[in-house]
């Protein structure tokens, strides 16, 4: 490459326009020399000129050709020049990063963690909250219920639905549906499956198509039609092994059902295995029997509001002629199906997204202060380069390249972390958050992550270049990185570190609150002790055991067999498992008077269920041998029932019945209360127990068919050890009963899955924020100590004790941490209302969470500044002073 001034390359690059001049001059010189040669040969001067031009040929053409080649050449040169310069920047950038591996690693991991946490949570929010449900024109699908007297929502009475279907104008299709679990035989092993029951409009609402066979048609829904069912594609593949549909029969809840088709991608209600037509003929005509839910597809042009208004008015008209009752609808509740499916998880997820955002902010603040420190220590290097003639633009580009390298690396690390977190989340999964199976990372999330990385690093990576253009290079050189600029920097740092601490405090307090609220929840006295209890959820075939009494006999026989097993201390039957939520409640009549009633939970009990669950007997007695099917009916009430309905009176000897619950109004026999037991939380761990009445399963067997559980207490305390024996006993008594065996502990764990999800994620975020804040403080103090070794050396040389100097450093940074804590407390107070709804049994201002978080941060701050301070004062002062 020729580099001398005037050399064609350099000239070409710097003085681009003169190529024309260059070409013309060369041609002119040729003609002139040629003419002179001709004159020497005896030509007349002007003849010679003409001849020289003739011999040269097309002068314009040659000039054009030459210029075209030169232009092409120059453009190529410029391209390779830029590419080379860029590659040089990249190489230089990589070298500087490798030379400061600690910085590079910290920056990459910091960015990666921030981006990873955000990408993961954003993915969850995206697929759970933002993505439409996976149905055609899903935004038109609505969910309908009736409004109760308290303004809440309740199920739809069949009679009301039938009128809705007939009279409502705002819907393209409307369907009632229900879902429950029952025994399914005929698919290999006996199993308990989820069976959806629906009216014919259901398929139209979801615009579903059969993947094989057909869906149900109106004639399948007509009274007296042959029972048919449509299985889910998943069920067909996994449980039916993809068998051909011809004459494929299943026994569902004792009824033979012919499978006519399979449907894929319809996951509402969740996990349905088989859909069967709702038998409209046997439905109750009472407008108070709220047994169903409904879905609809809005007619084209109908808004949700219009549909809601129409249904409200229609429902009021329908119930207007009924005798007044608390159990009649006061209107209709219409929401989008999306809202129904994700409703309760919106708030926690948005909260988590906010928390992840805070983590990213902490990461960015951290990175900003690190980049700033690095920029400051590189001020000298950059000043040298600038004074050697490197253009500002070039230095800025260099810094930008380094930043881009960091951002790229951070994004890659972040996506890796996000992927890991997503795997974890999917595993934590379905119990905690709806739609988690649909979870995936998509392009928008990728873009989001990359943009964030780029903005953060580039913003702060360029700061040193801006500073360089403010102060002239010479003064930066003289200053040697100290002085006024250093003062300004340390102010910026204080602000950054304080901000970081404040954000970290908000996160730590939030997670502290959620953890403590979770502890409160788990520590909640649920009124029973399930730690040593194994459970068996029963589902007997109605074909084999047609009468309720058959069920009770079977249950009783099973309890006796289990009681005889070694290691069993108590066994019994109970229709509702604690914290499970499957609890029937309704109208209970009191004191022999059918017009005097209570609203209470209705539970059937047999055997030693109270003993197995350690539900304390407070007064009277529990059920025993005296209480046979033909003996006088007895009942037991919970403490809160006695307190609410017989306050200050003796409940023993009073009478209760629940005719509407157990025998369709025909059994009017009142049972005498013989005992009072403690309150048990049947619904959820975090919900106040409701007044409960326990009846004897042999005396009122009606409901024993619907909800049947056996509870078995292990004498040694190890409930899991009982499970094989329970399975074996079941196999022996009836191999067709699906073995749904678990420990009570399992039920407890899955009942708090979403709370645990929150605790784990938020705890992880808080831990991250704590580490990031610590790393940030450490980085800044290390840098400051490095800058101040000389000053510290002098102090120590002049007799200052190293301990005092260290103390000074730590005190200074604790001052900044303190400022951050004050800011953080402000943040916590502001954010309180957001957190409150997620808390159980404590206030957002909980002093323990606040105090612990502040102490933890202060300790981390002290440690993070003591380490570099100790390192700075450990060296011989003479050496540090000479090092300058």
């Amino acid at each position, binding site marked *: 490459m*020729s580099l*001398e001034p*005037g*050399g*064609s390359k350099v000239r070409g690059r710097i003085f681009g326009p003169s190529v024309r001049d*260059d*070409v013309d*001059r*060369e*041609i002119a*010189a*040729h003609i002139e*020399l*040629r003419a002179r*040669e001709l004159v020497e040969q005896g030509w007349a001067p002007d003849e010679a000129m003409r001849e020289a031009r003739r*011999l*040269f*040929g*097309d*002068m314009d*053409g*040659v000039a054009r*050709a*030459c210029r075209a*080649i*030169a232009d*092409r*050449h120059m453009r*190529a040169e410029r391209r390779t020049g830029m590419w080379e310069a860029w590659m040089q920047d990249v190489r230089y950038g990589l070298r500087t990063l490798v030379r400061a591996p600690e910085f590079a690693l910290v920056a990459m991991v910091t960015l990666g963690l921030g981006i990873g946490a955000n990408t993961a949570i954003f993915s969850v929010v995206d697929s759970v909250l933002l993505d439409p449900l996976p149905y055609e024109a899903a935004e038109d699908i609505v969910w309908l219920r009736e409004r109760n007297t308290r303004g809440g929502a309740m199920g739809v009475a069949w009679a009301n639905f039938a009128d809705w279907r007939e009279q409502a104008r705002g819907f393209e299709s409307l369907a009632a549906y229900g879902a429950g679990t029952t025994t399914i035989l005929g698919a290999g092993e006996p199993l308990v499956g989820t069976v959806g029951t629906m009216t014919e409009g259901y398929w139209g609402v979801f615009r579903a198509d059969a993947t094989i066979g057909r869906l149900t048609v109106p004639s399948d829904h007509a009274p007296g039609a042959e029972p048919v069912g449509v299985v889910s594609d998943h069920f067909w593949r996994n449980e039916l092994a993809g068998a051909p549909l011809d004459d494929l029969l299943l026994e569902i809840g004792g009824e033979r059902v012919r499978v006519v088709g399979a449907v894929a991608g319809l996951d509402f209600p969740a996990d349905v295995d088989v859909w069967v037509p709702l038998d409209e003929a046997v439905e109750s005509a009472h407008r108070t029997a709220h047994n169903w839910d409904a879905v609809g597809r809005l007619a084209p042009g109908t808004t949700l509001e219009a549909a809601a208004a129409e249904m409200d008015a229609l429902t009021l008209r329908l119930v207007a002629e009924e005798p007044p009752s608390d159990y009649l609808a006061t209107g209709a509740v219409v929401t989008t199906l999306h809202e129904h499916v994700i409703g309760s998880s919106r708030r926690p997820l948005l909260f988590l997204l906010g928390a992840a955002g805070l983590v990213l902010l902490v990461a960015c603040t951290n990175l900003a202060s690190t980049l700033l420190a690095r920029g400051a220590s590189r001020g000298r290097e950059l000043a040298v380069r600038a004074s050697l003639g490197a253009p500002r633009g070039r230095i800025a580009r260099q810094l930008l390249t380094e930043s881009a390298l960091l951002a790229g690396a951070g994004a890659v690390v972040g996506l890796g972390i996000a992927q890991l977190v997503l795997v974890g989340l999917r595993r934590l999964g379905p119990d905690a958050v709806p739609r988690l199976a649909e979870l995936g990372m998509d392009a928008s999330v990728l873009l989001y992550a990359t943009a964030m990385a780029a903005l953060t690093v580039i913003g702060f990576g360029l700061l040193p270049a801006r500073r360089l253009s403010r102060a002239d290079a010479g003064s930066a050189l003289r200053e040697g990185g100290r002085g006024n600029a250093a003062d300004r920097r340390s102010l910026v740092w204080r602000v950054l570190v304080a901000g970081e601490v404040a954000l970290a405090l908000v996160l730590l307090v939030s997670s502290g609150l959620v953890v403590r609220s979770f502890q409160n929840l788990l520590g909640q006295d649920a009124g029973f002790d399930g730690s040593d209890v194994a459970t068996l959820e029963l589902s007997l075939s109605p074909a084999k055991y047609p009468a309720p009494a058959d069920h009770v006999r079977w249950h009783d026989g099973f309890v006796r067999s289990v009681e005889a097993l070694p290691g069993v201390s108590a066994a019994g039957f109970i229709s509702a498992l604690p914290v499970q939520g499957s609890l029937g409640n309704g109208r209970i009549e009191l004191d022999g008077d059918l017009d005097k009633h209570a609203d209470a939970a209705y539970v059937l009990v047999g055997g030693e269920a109270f003993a197995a669950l350690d539900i304390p007997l407070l007064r009277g007695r529990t059920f025993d041998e005296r209480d046979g099917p033909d003996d006088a009916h007895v009942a037991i009430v919970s403490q809160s029932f006695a307190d609410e309905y017989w306050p200050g009176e003796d409940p023993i000897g009073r009478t209760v019945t629940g005719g509407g619950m157990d025998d369709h109004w025909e059994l009017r026999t009142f049972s005498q209360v013989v005992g009072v037991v403690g309150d048990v939380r049947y619904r959820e761990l975090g919900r106040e127990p409701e007044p409960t009445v326990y009846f004897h399963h042999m005396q009122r067997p009606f409901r024993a068919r619907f909800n049947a559980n056996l509870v078995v207490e292990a004498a040694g305390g190890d409930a899991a050890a009982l499970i094989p024996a329970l399975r074996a006993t079941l196999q022996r008594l009836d191999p067709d009963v699906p073995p749904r065996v678990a420990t009570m502990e399992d039920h407890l764990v899955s009942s708090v899955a979403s709370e645990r999800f929150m605790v784990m994620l938020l705890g992880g975020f808080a831990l991250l924020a704590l580490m990031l804040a610590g790393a940030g403080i450490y980085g800044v103090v290390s840098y400051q100590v490095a800058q101040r070794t000389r000053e510290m050396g002098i102090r120590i040389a002049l007799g200052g004790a190293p301990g005092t100097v260290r103390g000074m450093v730590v005190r200074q940074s604790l001052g900044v941490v303190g400022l951050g804590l004050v800011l953080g407390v402000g943040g916590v107070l502001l954010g309180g209302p957001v957190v409150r709804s997620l808390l159980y049994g404590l206030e957002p201002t909980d002093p323990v969470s606040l105090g612990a978080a502040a102490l933890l941060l202060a300790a981390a701050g002290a440690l993070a500044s003591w380490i570099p301070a100790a390192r700075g004062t450990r060296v011989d002062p003479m050496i540090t002073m000479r090092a300058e």
Partner: protein
Amino acid sequence: MKDTPLDLLKGTLDVLILKTLSREPMHGYGISRYLREATDEAFQVQEGALYPALRRLEERGLLSAHWETTDTGRQAKVYALTPAGVQELRRGISSWQGYVDAMARVLGGAGA
């Protein structure tokens, strides 16, 4: 003097330029004059055609060029071979030699 001027075979001008410059750096007119004299004006070529060829060779990195003041006191653009140009010349000569040998073998055989 020539009888009938020959058309210059495609690509041969490049080799001729490189060969010319292998003796010493020259400006365009010098190259043109040398080629005329050395070939006894055997080739029918417009003198201007030399310049685009020079540009192309320069672009390919086979020549370097700079402006110089000649002994007569005028500015001239002087071309010189680069190391890559030397290599290219060697390659050009040997391929030309091969071409000539092959032609000679065939044409010699036809004449016998």
